[in-house]
């Protein structure tokens, strides 16, 4: 049963402190420490009071969530995803699991748990960015407002969902690469490479294109996620691209579904002679 596979993977991940920390907690903690460190630097090194400065809690949280699947964030998420999705090749433990559940359930269970971990990691990012804003205001006397950009707190939910979906496209790719390469390092390098190349391509193609985004551009998950976040947060600034938000959402969902299906098909056909 899929529920059994999910329960087992969740139990396992909660005991894998190294993966939990480096994969799903480290990036949010670094974000928090950089924010607070910046405020401490201003307060104790620059030593200039900053009256009149203000910080928007919702804005800070949305920024942190938007960066959740950036190349930096993706690096650590992929370290976590690789340990969950390809760790059994590394530890040669598939022989322990495969006789207990179907291949499909085993892999989907892992992906589900990665999805949960990504969700909690993004929530941790959001919580720590809000905390960093409050700590920063205490250090530097900044005024704390709900939002300086007139954003709705419910926008946080939307951005969280978009970034989570963007990360899950990468996680599904990680599942495919994990099955094909049987290597945790292979997963991290391949997924990070794909993420990085997409960023470069999306920037270059957008700069060359006029009018609404082409299908080539819309086929890049990174562009789709950026477009969706922009459509949610600043629809009036999108111009010609505004009408493509629906297509971008479908493209992201299609990528996640196609890569997940491909990973399951590959895994079901794979010989586990020597994991």
């Amino acid at each position, binding site marked *: 049963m899929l529920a059994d596979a999910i329960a087992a993977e969740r*139990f*396992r991940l909660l005991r894998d402190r190294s993966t939990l920390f480096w994969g799903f907690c480290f990036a949010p903690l670094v974000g928090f420490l950089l924010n607070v460190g910046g405020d401490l630097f201003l307060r104790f090194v620059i030593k200039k009071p900053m009256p009149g400065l203000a910080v928007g809690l919702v804005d800070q949280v949305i920024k942190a969530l938007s960066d959740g699947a950036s190349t930096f964030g993706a690096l650590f998420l992929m370290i976590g995803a690789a340990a969950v999705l390809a760790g059994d090749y590394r530890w040669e433990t598939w022989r322990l699991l495969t006789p*207990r559940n179907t291949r499909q359930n085993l892999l989907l269970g892992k992906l589900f748990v990665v999805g949960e971990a990504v969700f909690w990691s993004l929530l941790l990012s959001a919580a720590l960015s809000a905390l960093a804003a409050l700590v920063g205001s205490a250090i530097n006397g900044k005024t704390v407002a709900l939002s300086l950009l007139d954003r709705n707190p419910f926008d946080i939910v939307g951005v969280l969902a978009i970034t989570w979906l963007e990360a899950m496209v990468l996680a599904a790719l990680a599942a495919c690469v994990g099955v094909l390469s049987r290597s945790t390092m292979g997963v991290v390098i391949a997924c990070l490479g794909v993420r990085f190349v997409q960023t470069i391509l999306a920037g270059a193609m957008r700069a060359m294109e006029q009018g609404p985004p082409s299908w080539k551009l819309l086929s890049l998950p990174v562009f789709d996620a950026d477009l969706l976040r922009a459509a949610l947060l600043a629809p009036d600034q999108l111009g010609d691209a505004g009408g493509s938000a629906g297509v971008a959402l479908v493209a992201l969902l299609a990528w996640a579904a196609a890569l997940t299906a491909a990973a399951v098909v590959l895994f079901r056909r794979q010989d586990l002679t020597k994991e």
Partner: protein
Amino acid sequence: MSIALEADRLTKTYGAVRALDEFSIAIPAGGVFGVLGPNGAGKSTLFRIALGLVRPTSGSARLFGTAPGDITALRKVGAMIETPRYPPYLTARDTLTMLALESGAKTADVGGWLERVSLTHAADRATSGFSVGMKQRLGLAAAFLTKPELVILDEPTSGMDPAGIQEIRALIVDLAKREGVTVILASHQLDEVKRVCDRVAILSRGKVVAEGGVAELTAGEARLRLTLTSPLAPALAVLGDRGEADGSDAVLADIPRAEAPAVIRALVEAGAEIVEARWREVDLEGVYLKSLGQTPTATTVEGAA
């Protein structure tokens, strides 16, 4: 009688290597079935196919009548394949709990199983620090944890100390008999198979070369040794292809027990002076070696005719 594991013309090739070659077997439910064979005979490949770890090149395998990897069959099976490995960050207790969850079984039985395989003292230690023998014990607990109908064990006592081997053998026999679990056990240790198994299949180069009950296999291989005070030639002439000289004063006769009186009578009538007749029974090792095309040597058991 229901069939626990069935293979029909099963073939598996790894590049140029043919691990299983048109392999067919039907292992009945109940008792302990031994699978013997040298390295590369195809034992582990058979188990891996049965458990859905490896896909056959051709032919089919069925567990309780369903295809490998089918959830209904998997729920009835426990297994330990080769030297078990575990996620290094998990303790023994966590490992069994995780495996129980994966199988949809009760996690409450974990403590009891750790006790049965004498690992209670190490229950909360990470498995990365376990000796091979401790890993084997934990693997056995994992195999039996979900109360399966069939347990597949690949070299279950490898790497264990003599006391541990005895303990595990007793546990396997106990579970097979008392709880009605069918056990299929692959081993290189002929003594282990002889002590634990009811039936045996001997594999060589991906094929079954002998199969049957342990007593049945060895009884079929008994030879009659006749010590003579007269020249051997007349006796050998009577026996023909079924006889051979054993030293200067004895002949060995490959004959069924039922024919022994008639053969002895014929030999006496031909002038043979027989001073002793003993059945020389070949043990499991002899059967094993003969099945593999090697000569059984000193490991024979003699008994009076």
